[in-house]
């Protein structure tokens, strides 16, 4: 080791701090390309979320090949593995600084979205949250707009419905992270306000959950219904064990948000899902021209797969960005884009939606669905609907 090296490096450090580095041009560049930095969990435990959203976005691009306000849309996809918020943040930073993207999109889970929020603020980039569902997310940056849903929003209607359906006592079972806690809180609030009582609140770990012991507790507690929220993809083992443990035979009804009966895996869950009642903003079985177009576009992109509520968030996110771009007539200034997108209303494959101008969060209809078999396949069939539910339920 040498003193000389150390000294020269220290001087170097001093110079570096004293002189400004190469001037970096303004972040948002104009041109004929609109670059969107898409950050999704493409590998790791939440990979299916990323795959659904990416497929939906590619499907949207196929269906809308024409330039928008003179701009061709380009997607830069990055994998944040779903479990490393610091990576999400770094990727957002790089996309902003190096790739000069004009919008950020994706964001599979709450911690990932929260970690990236300050970057959106600082870089003044619209950030479209297509999946993460904790209520607080849009409040973390004035540049965040959400096309997914929020858990209080999806939860409140089922709590009210449960009360109407004669359910008096319920146990909640949620995954122990922010969205789960949101769902637990929202359900309890609405359900007790309507006169029901929550007799136990159970939380399962985010990783490596084994639902057997929790479900055994539910069985012992003998409520009228079990309310569940688990992240997309986790629903299958839970439903299986619900059936195996004989909870249905014990007279316990299964209710929950639609995450648990995700369209992506619904058919694999099989008969144990039949009869479950859930509330959500999207079902692939939704009957509308917009949804049929979406299903067709998705099938062309990912043959043999069914889009789920994650996919619709991606699809609508693209629609929102495109509309924003049209309204600014191709101006990609972040603040103007956000202003143009906030307050938008349109008919999405899920039904009518609106981006609330103040909160920048989504306002949408929430459907009550029952899982049924139609034409040899399982579907979440919508049979009731609460209109224009706000992000806080």
């Amino acid at each position: 080791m040498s003193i000389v090296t150390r000294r020269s490096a220290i001087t170097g450090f001093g110079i570096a701090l004293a002189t400004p580095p190469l001037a970096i041009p303004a972040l948002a560049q104009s041109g004929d390309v609109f670059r969107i930095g898409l950050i999704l969990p493409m590998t790791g435990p939440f990979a299916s979320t990323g795959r659904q959203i990416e497929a939906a976005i590619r499907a949207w691009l196929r269906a809308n090949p024409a330039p928008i306000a003179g701009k061709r849309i380009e997607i830069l996809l990055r994998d944040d593995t779903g479990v490393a918020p610091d990576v999400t943040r770094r990727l957002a930073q790089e996309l902003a600084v190096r790739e000069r993207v004009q919008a950020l999109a994706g964001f599979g889970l709450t911690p990932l979205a929260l970690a990236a929020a300050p970057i959106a603020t600082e870089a003044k980039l619209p950030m479209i949250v297509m999946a993460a569902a904790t209520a607080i997310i849009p409040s973390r940056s004035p540049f965040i707009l959400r096309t997914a849903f929020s858990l209080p929003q999806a939860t409140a209607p089922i709590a009210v419905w449960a009360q109407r359906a004669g359910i008096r006592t319920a146990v909640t079972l949620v995954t122990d992270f922010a969205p789960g806690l949101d769902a637990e809180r929202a359900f309890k609030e609405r359900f007790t306000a309507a006169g029901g009582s929550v007799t136990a609140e159970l939380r399962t770990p985010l990783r490596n959950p084994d639902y057997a012991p929790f479900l055994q507790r539910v069985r012992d507690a003998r409520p009228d219904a079990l309310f569940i929220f688990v992240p997309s993809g986790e629903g299958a083992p839970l439903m299986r064990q619900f059936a195996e443990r004989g909870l249905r035979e014990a007279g316990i009804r299964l209710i929950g948000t639609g995450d648990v009966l995700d369209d992506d895996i619904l058919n694999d869950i099989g008969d144990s899902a039949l009869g479950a009642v859930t509330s959500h903003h999207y079902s692939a079985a939704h009957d509308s021209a917009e949804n049929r177009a979406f299903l067709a576009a998705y099938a062309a992109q990912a043959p043999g797969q069914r889009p789920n509520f994650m996919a619709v968030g991606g699809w609508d996110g693209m629609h929102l960005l495109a509309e924003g771009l049209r309204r600014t007539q191709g101006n990609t200034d972040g603040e103007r884009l956000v202003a143009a997108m906030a307050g938008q209303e349109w008919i999405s494959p899920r039904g009518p939606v609106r981006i609330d101008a103040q909160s920048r969060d989504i306002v949408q209809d929430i459907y009550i669905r029952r899982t049924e078999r139609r034409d040899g396949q399982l579907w979440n069939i919508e049979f009731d609907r609460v209109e224009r539910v706000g992000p806080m339920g």
Partner: protein
Amino acid sequence: MASAITVLLDGVAAGMLLFVLSVGLSVTLGLMNVVNLAHGAFGMLGGYVCVVLLNRLGVPFPLALLAAAAAAAAMGFVLERLLYVHIYGRDHLTQVLFSIGLVFIMGAVADWLMGARTQLIQLPSWLSGRMEFAGIGLGRYRLFLIILCGFVALALHFGLVRTRFGARLRAAVDDGVVARGMGLPVGRIFSITFALGSGLAGLGGALGVEILGLDPNFPLKYMVYFLVVVAVGGANSVAGPFLAALLLGVVDVAGKYWIPEVGAFIIYTAMVVLLLARPQGLLARAK
């Protein structure tokens, strides 16, 4: 009381499954002194084989299980001959590097072939549902797991004690140099044992699809559990890992049932305490 017994039996079933998945790792560690973090990848392979045969080709479940074990054993045999032989005798960290690399490769290939989704199977009707004895309920599949895995454990134990191969295996574990000197084909014993361990992992992976879930992340997700079983149980025996796996299963399930607030904390605490109390493994005699 009845639910306490149900919980206990659930734990036993989970533990038994864990045993079948990890026992191969403990033998390879004891015999070849190889830290094989890719062990779970053989479990994953078994799981996928089972899923494909069952869901796409309609093969009966027992046959699918056998095929899963056979496929994983074959894969284990090939990889052992092709790759693992080169890392015997290398330091443990190199083996870690190697086997983690293998996990990445196999995970990516599984993803490429089967997608990132969680895979599910439909159990035959004779294994679905639940039965009750004297108020104690137990899922049929869990009962099936207990019986099958218990049988596997017994077969392994007696195989090791009673058969000629078992005797040779034990000799090779005790002292490879001496065993070589006595003219035992240590290399072939290694191959067969490795294939056997991988096959068992494949069987465990297939059995575990219903309980543990299956996706390309499987080997990494459960790696820590396998390591815990081996460390707590000690290498070189069947009974040690068996007890460790049972304990792990029961403590995990019981902890989640009675004190869910503590979560996974309890299982790691139990592991650390056991390791400090019995560093050589559960059944090792104090030195």
